[in-house]
């Protein structure tokens, strides 16, 4: 049976390319999405063998999406597909529960091979030195939405929590990053390399 994939990338053209390429290798793309939250929905809906996930995506970045898929799905394994040949990001991905990490400058054979190995159960990302998290998962998620210009009310709706909770997280984020305003928060997060979405 063909390997079933849900494909997540916010660039339409890139998605079409990857879709065509996978199809030509007999891999079935059951759904394509352009943001991290749609990815979670489609993975629940289709239970694919593989979620092929870009890191930089609107609404929820690929690393956080990976964490949730790894936690909630027993069928779907995540392979990250990114522009960035970045060992640190690869380790973050692995710790979030990803099985593969392929950059867009590798060959299509390498991508297909990684997908096949991961489906066979192999962990394809090597784990280097341990790294320390500055922010919690929830804080990362809220930081991204603040940087996308969402208001507290909108953020509360997106993450299905109360505005009160959002305010608390926002206050904690500002304390951690030493920011006095949301604008400062985004700027300081940017300086510390804590924003992972879209490039």
């Amino acid at each position, binding site marked *: 049976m063909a390997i079933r994939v849900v494909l997540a990338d*916010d*660039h*339409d*053209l*890139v998605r*079409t*390319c*990857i879709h*065509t*390429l996978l199809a*030509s290798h007999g891999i079935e793309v059951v759904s394509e999405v352009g943001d991290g939250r749609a990815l979670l929905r489609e993975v629940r809906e289709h239970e694919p063998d593989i979620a092929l996930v870009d890191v930089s995506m609107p609404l929820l970045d690929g690393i956080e999406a990976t964490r949730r898929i790894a936690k909630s799905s027993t069928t779907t394994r995540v392979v990250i*597909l990114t*522009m960035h040949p970045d060992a640190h990001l690869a380790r973050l991905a692995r710790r979030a529960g990803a099985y593969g990490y392929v950059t*867009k*400058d*590798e*060959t*299509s054979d390498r*991508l297909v091979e990684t997908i096949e190995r991961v489906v066979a159960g192999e962990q394809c990302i090597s784990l280097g030195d341990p790294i320390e998290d500055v922010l919690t998962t929830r804080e990362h998620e809220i930081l991204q939405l*603040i*940087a*996308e*210009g*969402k*208001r507290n009310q*909108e953020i509360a709706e997106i993450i299905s929590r109360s505005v009160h909770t959002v305010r608390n997280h926002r206050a904690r984020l500002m304390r951690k990053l030493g920011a006095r*305003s*949301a*604008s*400062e*928060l*985004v*700027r300081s997060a*940017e300086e510390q390399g804590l*924003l992972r979405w*879209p*490039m």
Partner: protein
Amino acid sequence: MPIRVALVDDHCLIRDALSDLIASRGEVDVVAVGGDGAEAVRIASEDRPDVLLLDIALPDGSGLELIDRILASSPATRVLMLSMHSDPAYAVTARKRGASGLISKSAPIEDLLDAIRDVASGDTIPAVDELAKRERQMLTLIAQGATNDEIASALHLRPKTVETYSQQLMTKLSVHTRAGLVGCARRMQL
């Protein structure tokens, strides 16, 4: 006669798949592919394609810096830039430097094929929704953390005018908050 297209993008996966995709439509022949700026310049002078698809972000520099040299060695070639960014400023710069247009990688494949046809027949793709110079200056200052009062005195405007501009910016960039503007400035690499 099919349009002779060359494609330069440093991402092997994208380059291969994209060249297959556009060639599969029949109207286009992919005559050459390359992965960096040096290859783009060589391809222009050796293959003289009708249309050169050129990624902006290349390992040996910006594709925008190559337009001059490409057109100098192959004046009939139409340069169509590809970009990961949706910032309209890139499209404006590309047009100023002599490219026939810019297509975002967020666009569907049909838009790319239309654009290839258009520029091959001599049309250009206008850069739309350009941020006014003033809006750009403001956005840069907002991203640096300046208050409206500070921006007003830096740009010699009334605070009220600054407020109007920042509202316009939020509308243009589809964000509701000042923090959203800072996020946009980051994406636009201001």
